Structures are given as structure tokens and as C-alpha cells.
């Protein structure tokens, strides 16, 4: 933990700590696949020194998977200090809150954040308002298409987060949820001055979209002129990497930063659930980009201009 009291957490699908001194908390689990989340509960190894652990539960959970997850978390709790469950499914929020085996946390996939990176172009200065494009109008005449600066309320909206609503947080607190999670989105964050919950920021990547099934897709990056950053399709997730911390991430309520050690762990080859068809991974199942290389600087990452979570 640094002098400002910011916790540093590392998220590995199966929590294995090479350097336990460098982290304050381990995250493990899977946010978009129940099969892999359950597998991570089976395969995770004990991390030493009593470092607290957070299990990340998936976004699409059947009733039977929910039972399976909770039983395994409870069993794992005997050997690992699993004291939090990140809930990316509303049913998990209800069940974990009522069950009491660990503290429920509202996951980033339930935050309501706008994660399409294209909105980062909207605010004044980034919108090509001076550019004109010829178009054919409905009446058949030629005209031009032009950008315009976005209204102030919209500029605020794209950075604001529905789950920061005070009445919503009050409702969540009655369910036992006192921590909410966000992604480090390209357009930055705008949070109320006095957020009535603790907040976690996922620094390494932003989930743009999720399909229930893994579908064939190309390896590597997907680019399009309208997108300010390339997208990556991995298993059933479409995401972009978020290299640096964006404006608003220094909000005092954000007291935990999560970095992913790997996002390319291999799919379980025996999986018969929806989420296994083709894995885009290399033969070793390792992360080609190395989102986090295992090292940790001592200074606060917000002081950096270069991301700490990239390999040199």
C-alpha cells in the first residue's frame, strides 16, 4: 500500500503470487465465463502471507453455476483468505449479499459505464467539427455533414457512471455492497465529490462488449478509422487496453487499483459450455503482450506518463 493508502491488486485468473510483497490483494476468477470462473476456484493455489483474495465472478451465471461457485468459494476459504466476491451479475449481488460467505462487490460490468472508445472523440477539441463531408439529403439534394461541439451535459454524461448514484448506492448498501468497481475508460471518469462507497479502478483494460459464446475471430488487434484505439477480441470478450490512467482516476474514493497479470490464459480444452470454441492463444497459453510483467514501482502510478503495466 502506498502512502496515500491506495491498494494495489493483481488479477490473475488463477491466483499465483510470484512476489507477494508487491501486492496488497490478489484477484482471481473470470468475469465473462462461468466455466472458467469455476475452474479458477478449483485450480487456484494458495498465496502466502495471508494476502487477502477477491474472487471475480462472471456476468452470465445460471442458477446451478451460482450454487457451484458459492460452494467452491466457501471450500476455498478454508485455505485462502477469500473475503470478497466481485459480482458482475445481478443475481450474484442478491445471492452473495444474502449468503454472507464473502463481501459482495459491484463489478465493473454492472457499473453502467460507457465503454465504447469512440465517445472519447466527442468532447470539444477531439470532435472534427471543422471537417465537412458530402452527403445526400432525404430530399435528394447534396449537403454537407459537419461535426458540432457536444453539449456540456453530454460531456459530463459520457464520463459519469450510473452506479455512482447516491440512491443506488444506498440500495446496494442494504444488500451488503459497499465497494463498486469501474474501468479506466479512455474518456476519463467523473465521480461525485462524496461517493458513498469505496471504489476500485481496473487499470489495464476496458471491456467493450461480451458475447455469450466464444466465436472465431482474428488474433491480435482490430482497427477501424473511427476507433481511437485498437480493439482485441479474446474468447467471448471485446476489449481495449488502457495504457495510462485517464482523468478522474485520482478521485479520493478510488482506493484500489487492479492490474491484470494476464488476459490470455487458455480456454479449458474440455469445456463443453457455451464459451469454448476456439482459443486465440499461442501454444503455450501465455500472454503475448504481457499486460503486467510482475514488477511494481514504488511511486504512485498516476505520477507516471508511461503505463506501468506494459513490458518495455
Amino acid at each position, binding site marked *: 500500500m502506498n502512502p496515500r493508502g491506495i491498494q494495489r491488486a493483481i488479477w490473475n485468473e488463477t491466483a499465483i503470487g510470484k512476489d507477494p510483497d508487491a501486492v496488497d490483494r490478489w484477484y482471481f476468477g473470470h468475469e465473462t465465463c462461468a466455466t472458467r470462473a469455476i475452474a479458477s476456484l478449483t485450480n487456484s493455489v494458495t498465496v502466502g502471507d495471508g494476502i487477502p483474495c477477491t474472487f471475480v465472478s462472471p456476468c*452470465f451465471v445460471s*442458477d446451478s453455476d*451460482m450454487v457451484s461457485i458459492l460452494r467452491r468459494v466457501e471450500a476455498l476459504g478454508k485455505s485462502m483468505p477469500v473475503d470478497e466476491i466481485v459480482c458482475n451479475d445481478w443475481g450474484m*449481488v442478491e445471492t452473495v449479499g444474502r449468503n454472507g460467505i464473502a463481501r459482495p462487490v459491484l463489478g465493473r460490468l454492472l457499473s453502467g459505464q460507457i465503454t465504447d472508445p469512440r465517445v472519447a472523440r466527442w468532447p470539444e477539441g477531439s470532435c472534427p467539427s471543422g471537417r465537412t463531408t458530402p452527403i445526400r439529403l432525404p430530399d435528394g439534394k447534396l449537403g454537407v*455533414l459537419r461535426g458540432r461541439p457536444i453539449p456540456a*451535459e453530454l460531456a459530463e454524461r459520457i464520463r459519469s457512471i450510473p452506479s455512482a448514484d447516491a440512491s443506488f448506492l444506498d440500495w446496494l448498501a442494504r444488500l451488503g455492497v459497499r465497494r463498486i468497481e469501474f474501468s479506466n475508460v479512455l474518456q476519463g471518469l467523473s465521480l461525485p465529490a462524496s461517493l458513498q462507497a469505496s471504489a476500485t479502478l481496473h487499470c489495464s483494460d476496458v471491456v467493450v*462488449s461480451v458475447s455469450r459464446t466464444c466465436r472465431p475471430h482474428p488474433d491480435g488487434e482490430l482497427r477501424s478509422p473511427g476507433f481511437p484505439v485498437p480493439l482485441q477480441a479474446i474468447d467471448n470478450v471485446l476489449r481495449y487496453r488502457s495504457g495510462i490512467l485517464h482523468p478522474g482516476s485520482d478521485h479520493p474514493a478510488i482506493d484500489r487499483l487492479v492490474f491484470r497479470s494476464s488476459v490470455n490464459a487458455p480456454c479449458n480444452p474440455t469445456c463443453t459450455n457455451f464459451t469454448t470454441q476456439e482459443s486465440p492463444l499461442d501454444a503455450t497459453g501465455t500472454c503475448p503482450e504481457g499486460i503486467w510483467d510482475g514488477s511494481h514501482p514504488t511511486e504512485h502510478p498516476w505520477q507516471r506518463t508511461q503505463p506501468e503495466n506494459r513490458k518495455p
Partner: protein
Amino acid sequence: MSLPTPVRIRIVAPLHRPEEVPDLARAGADEIYCGYLPPDWISRYGDWDGLSRRQGTVANLSFPDQLRRTARACAELGMGSALALNVRFTEAQIPSVLDIALLWESAGGTSVVVSCPNLLLALDRSGSRLQRHLSLLANCANSAAIRLFLPLGVSRFVLPRELTIAEMARIAAVEPGLEYEAMSYHDKCTFVDGLCGFYHDTVQAVETDLPADFDASDPSLPCVERIDPGYEGHGCGIAFASSQGAPFTFGTRSSTPGCAVCDVAALADAGVTFLKIGGRGLPLAEKIRAIRRLRDAADRRESSTAGRAAPIPPQDPSRKGCREGRCYYGTDR
């Protein structure tokens, strides 16, 4: 042996003009739903899908008078009428969205389609008597999620289109006595709607067939201003350039709509008796075609003495036009 109790299957049809109500009813729709995107909202937040999941003025009503005429026409025909306010809203937006919901209620609308807990809480505080339908955007995929939203006044659950019918049946069996609705025509997508961060905006086709003397800087040319003039399309439809060089698109560019006609009986057996048609902005003729196809399948199910309709064979004329990947709940999903 007594026969199973007949189940009334209801068709929920999309609407974008009040004048469509009688035609939709005649085709067999039992309820309608619509969106609303008034000029005041557009001036503050733009016309992307920030108020419901459909963008622009083509797919949405624009004025209070249209809300009133729609609600009145539905009431005269005994149809339910729902207003989709089904995205998530920030604290700053809630008062305006609540005003719209209450305007709809005062116009005679019967329900709202919502995914935002903040809005459900605000509706509760306001004392609104609107029925609340939980949108599929809430991604309510298990019975625990049903139990979470019931205390917020939700009476109908629109289940995610990615669930199997067996999964829907399990939910309905655990939480019986509620209304369950499922997407049954149009709007099938690769991505889980409730987990999709791509926004929907209006694509403006660029004109390439220009006269030689065309001058884009001519100030007399009519001008359309947009917040995102470079919008290329919905994320599921964009042809991305991949690292391997070949263009890649997530969605399928098929003219065949997403369809669950063959599964109407199975859905009803599962307890899902409200069948939703997507495509608010589609031409009326296309909406009527979808209603008639679902109505025909529903009538077969309802009139079946065995309590369930026989499977539709592959050679049946009603399956003409079936395409792989377009079936909502079948084996090719």
C-alpha cells in the same frame, strides 16, 4: 386425464408512429412498446441511444402529443402500451427521465421498460403506478436476479436472448406466477445487449457521386450537424481491419431477421408467454409480417388439443427463408 390449461400467448410489437397502432392490432399484436426522444433531450444529450437502446428520431416518438395519441389509441383497443427507457442513467439524468416516465403515465401509457435500478428506485419514490418491465438490458439470467428486482416493483421480466429455452424454463419454474417475455423476431445480435458497450448512432451515408464543381466549403449548402460525424456504424457491423489483413465483422449481414417462430410453443411451455418483436424503426409492413408469423405460430399452439404444437418440419413453407445463425433459440444459435 385433463388437458393442460390453455396459455394465452401475447405478441408485443414495436411502434414508432401513433398511426401504426390500429394496423399492429389488426395484425395480431396484443401490446406495443415505443421509444421517445424529444428535442429537449437531444439538445442536451444528443440523439444517440442515450435514452433507450434505439437512436435517432426514426425509431422513436418525438413529442408529448405523439405519446398521448399512442397511449389513447392503445387504450381504445384494449392493448397494453410500454415506453422503453431501458438504458442506464446517471444521477443527473434521473429527474429528466422520471419526468418523461410520468408524462407517459399521465398520457395513459400502462408500463415502462427499464434496466436501471436508479430509475426503478425513482419511480418508487414518485408513487408512479406504471407497470415496470425489466428490460433484457438488465441481463436477468437467473432466478436470484428476479428476486433482486421484484422488490423494486418489477412485474415482468424480459429475459436475455442468449438464454436457452431450458434456462428460461428453470427460471420461470423457480419464480412462478410472474410475466416472462422473450425476444422472438428481429434484432438478434452477436453481443449480449446488456453487456454491450457499443453505442448506437445514426449512420449518415457519405455521397461519393459528386459533380465536378461540388465545393464542400460553399456556405449555401444545407448542413447537417452531428456530434459524431465520423460514426461508422454499430460495433457488431463494422468491418475491422485485423492484424492478419483481412477485414473482420462480428455480426452477420443477413437480410433474414432473427426469428423464434419455430420455438413459440416451446417458449410458452417454458412459461414465456410474451413474445417481443424488435425493430422499432422498421417499416410497418415488416412489423406486420413479423406479428402475423408469430401470431400464426401462437394460434397453432393455443388451439392444439395436446397442449403443445407439433414441431414445424424443415420443409414447412413457414420455414422458407430460414438461415443458419438467425434462429433465436434453435440449435444453430
